[in-house]
């Protein structure tokens, strides 16, 4: 005969309510862990998928995701010259926030080196990768743009030709893939007036210099298109992605590029570590702290409920002791109830999570090792929560029956 379950059946309402409460708390604890896993996955997904062995970025920066990096596009050609490099492609990454159909639209704009990189590596769920040098984009589903949607960014209209799933930046914003030149025209889009003002100020600067005054042609050039001025290079890109030839020695390639004073080179793993050690690490600590607090709260709630359930039973416990029950009978009665609340709460949390987590705005990944870890934690807090009740119960004197 199991006293614990008999008592629970008798106090079903209170027990069920406690289990639901604990279950909801555990669901949040579970979700927090899942959000952290999701953060890591989302932060490293692009680096993982883009298929670059090395990232060449602006010297001494930790770009292009952790901070801004600017390198000249011709770096691409320099990298191609390094022995062992199969391909080098420029890469542009920046986040924009525009208004689209009355709602804010945040896109992490990724520029792919057309025609070398057409986004064939993208995990497409619909449509195709880029097929033209201009005015096409592959959008992540989280951006809410359907296939065939036309979006005006800067002066041009881009058509969504493909959709990816789960491709988001470390901030949770969906990625949009364009050709590098489109990405740059989105980034450096300036109103006509701004361009005219810029040209005028260039002219004014040239006039202020003796070389401008004695060279009328130079003066005229400086007020013209920026591409006509050799001192102004083409727009910078964020990084150059390197793919190695099969059998190439990665250390040798990296050492060669690293010897150039103007750039810094990161391997794929280093790039992932940069992402994780920065922003994601703070989020991890934040989530970890919340998890710890929720676990403590769950323990306190469970302890209080177990304690009051025990208080209600003091007379019965005294009777059991009077008829000679060992302490172990009483302890297991209370411990089993705590474990049952914990186990049912855990099950409930998992079950509710399967409905709730897919509806979260950011990826929540529930992984087996995390589930096992949480199960161990729940076991621990159930035991801890029963201690208060057990402490009370073992001190009950059998002659309490008479009062």
């Amino acid at each position: 005969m199991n006293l614990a379950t008999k008592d629970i059946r008798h106090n079903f309402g209170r027990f069920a309510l406690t289990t639901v409460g604990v279950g909801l708390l555990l669901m949040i604890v579970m979700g927090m862990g899942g959000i952290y896993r999701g953060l890591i996955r989302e932060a490293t997904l692009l680096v993982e998928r883009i298929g670059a062995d090395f990232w060449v970025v602006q010297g001494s920066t930790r770009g292009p995701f952790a901070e801004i990096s600017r390198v000249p596009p011709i770096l691409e050609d320099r990298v191609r010259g390094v022995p062992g490099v199969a391909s080098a492609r420029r890469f542009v990454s920046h986040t924009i926030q525009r208004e689209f159909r009355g709602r804010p639209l945040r896109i992490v704009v990724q520029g792919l080196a057309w025609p070398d990189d057409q986004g064939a590596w993208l995990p497409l769920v619909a449509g195709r990768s880029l097929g033209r040098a201009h005015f096409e984009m592959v959008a992540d589903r989280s951006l809410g743009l359907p296939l065939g949607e036309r979006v005006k960014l800067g002066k041009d209209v881009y058509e969504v030709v493909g959709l990816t799933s789960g491709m988001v930046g470390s901030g949770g914003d969906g990625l949009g893939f364009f050709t590098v030149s489109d990405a740059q025209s989105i980034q450096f889009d300036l109103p006509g007036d701004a361009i005219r003002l810029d040209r005028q100020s260039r002219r004014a600067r040239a006039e202020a210099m003796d070389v401008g005054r004695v060279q009328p042609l130079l003066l005229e050039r400086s007020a013209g298109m920026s591409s006509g001025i050799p001192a102004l290079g083409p727009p910078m890109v964020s990084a150059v992605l390197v793919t190695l030839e099969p059998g190439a020695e990665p250390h040798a390639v990296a050492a060669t590029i690293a010897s150039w004073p103007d750039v810094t080179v990161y391997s794929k793993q280093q790039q992932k570590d940069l992402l994780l050690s920065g922003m994601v690490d703070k989020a991890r600590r934040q989530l970890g702290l919340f998890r710890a607090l929720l676990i403590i709260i769950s323990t306190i709630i469970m302890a209080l409920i177990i304690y009051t359930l025990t208080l209600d039973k003091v007379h019965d416990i005294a009777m059991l002791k009077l008829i000679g029950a060992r302490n172990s009978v009483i302890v297991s009665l209370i411990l089993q109830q705590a474990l049952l609340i914990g186990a049912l709460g855990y099950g409930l949390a998992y079950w509710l999570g399967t409905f709730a987590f897919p509806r979260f705005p950011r990826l929540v990944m529930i992984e087996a090792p995390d589930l096992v870890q949480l199960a161990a934690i729940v076991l621990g807090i159930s035991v801890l929560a029963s201690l208060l009740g057990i402490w009370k119960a073992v001190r009950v004197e059998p002659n309490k029956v008479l009062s």
Partner: protein
Amino acid sequence: MTQTSAQSTAALEALNLTKVYGSGNTEVIAMNDVTLRVSRGEIVALLGPSGAGKSTLLTALGLINPPNSGRIVIGGTPVMDGPRALVDLPAFRRRHLGFVFQKANLIPFLNATENVQVALEINDVPPRAAKRRAMELLDYLGVADRADNLPDALSGGQQQRVAVARALANHPSLILADEPTAALDSHRGRQVMELFRKVAHERAAAVLVVTHDHRSLDVFDRTCEMEDGRLRGTLEASTATAQTLA
């Protein structure tokens, strides 16, 4: 401690028990040098006015209220020496003692059968055998038809009979009952007393019953009376009845 005196064949021997509650000017001597022997197969009534110390004596003998001094020997085994336990008390209680109180004190979340069964399982009787024996006992006490009811659904008398069944479950050698019939009507009360007598005689158990019910005194082999913590003489049951009637 292992010496066996001539009287150790008695089911119960209480020697010079004293119990003092409180201290200073709130001090109450609830039990004052009480010596009592009950033989196997004997049913004894314990009478006395309120506050005389009857419950104190009964709980001391029941090993749940240690005396300040004196010795208790049950079934030849010395169990208490003053406040000091000489045996594992819970184990001793579950094997040798049965309790019945004024209130049935049934466990509210267990049905009638389970309330009896729990006493057996605590004493390591396997669940199935425990259940069978519990049903037999309920049948014996005439509450078999309410076996599946929770205590809430039983009348006071039915509850008390379940409590008696629980007390009898492990074939105790000493049954202690504190006003077991106070909550029952006289007919039911008498039935319970006669049941105790039957148990005492048929199973050679010693039964000590605190009672205020003078109409049932003929059931007992012997009556003792307590007053102000002292046990005053031992009367034959018939004498006690005569005194009450006089």
